[in-house]
């Protein structure tokens, strides 16, 4: 590690980012704080092995990811009963009793590509991810954001393939809906056009 990287500065530079990473996956502030502390301590021990090929943040997140996975594994052993619970049974239903759309997706007036350079989009995405229910969030984030194989996620959380598919489906439904309300939807965009900068948001044609 370069001389400019004083371990005491790590906490200021990366503390919040690492904490949010851990909190989004673990949901317990105490567990997240412990995982962050363990990460910094392990980084300190392994300082000599950091070769500077990746950014300091990427290196630290790599260590933290293992800590988070360990915690999730332990949590799954401690809470066997959680395994049987159907994810999302308490959420408002998007489908009627026969499985037909009750809350069908609406047209988006802007696409995620329009938001890539927009800080507000990332904030909305971040907020929506943090609102996913606990068991669903860890499965979805490990798979979609951390890029773990489905079989690894099943093993870490102690769930069946069928249960993982259900959680992923539920996560996609909830996330899509949350972003529709907070970013993509007609209501949200016309709100912003009225209140902020009219004319700046190009409307897409009907799809």
């Amino acid at each position, binding site marked *: 590690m370069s001389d400019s990287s004083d*371990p*005491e500065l*790590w*906490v200021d*530079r*990366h*503390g*919040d*980012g*690492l*904490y*949010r990473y851990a*909190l989004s996956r673990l949901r317990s*502030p105490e567990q997240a*704080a412990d995982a*962050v*502390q363990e990460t*910094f*301590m392990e980084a*300190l021990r392994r300082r000599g092995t950091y070769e500077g090929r990746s*950014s*300091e*943040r990427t290196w630290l*997140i790599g260590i933290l990811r293992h800590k988070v996975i360990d915690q999730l594994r332990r949590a799954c052993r401690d809470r066997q009963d959680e395994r049987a619970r159907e994810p999302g049974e308490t959420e408002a239903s*998007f*489908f009627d009793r*026969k*499985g*037909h*759309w009750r809350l*069908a*997706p609406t047209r*988006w007036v802007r696409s*995620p*590509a329009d938001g*890539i350079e927009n800080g507000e989009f*990332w*904030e909305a*995405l*971040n*907020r929506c991810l*943090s609102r996913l229910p606990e068991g669903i969030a860890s499965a979805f984030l490990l*798979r*979609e*954001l*951390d*890029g773990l194989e*489905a079989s690894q996620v099943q093993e870490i959380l102690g769930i069946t393939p069928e249960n993982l*598919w*259900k959680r*992923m*489906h539920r996560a*996609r*439904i909830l*996330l*899509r809906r949350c*972003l*529709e309300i907070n970013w*993509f939807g007609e209501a949200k965009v016309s709100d912003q056009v009225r209140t902020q900068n009219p004319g700046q948001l190009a409307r897409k044609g009907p*799809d």
Partner: protein
Amino acid sequence: MSLPRDIWRLLNLPCEGMTELGSRAFDGPMGRAERLALKVHLLTCGPCRRFLRQVGELRVALKRFSSEDESGRDLTGPRLPDEIRERIRRSIRDR
């Protein structure tokens, strides 16, 4: 079970089951019957088509989001509590 009978059974799935099949397609390969049944359903179902297209667009954005995660750009949101920050600083100093 034979392929036509499988497809017939799957074709009777409502939108909830069909979007689950479609969602599963993002996560790995599907059987032939599932693939065909989904294709046929999507030909006639606008809301499911829209759902899967939007979810696909979101996946692309999420890939970007995970690299932002590691880029060091901090979004607003919960912050590491001060007492934990101090606790970690102390343990780093004490080593």
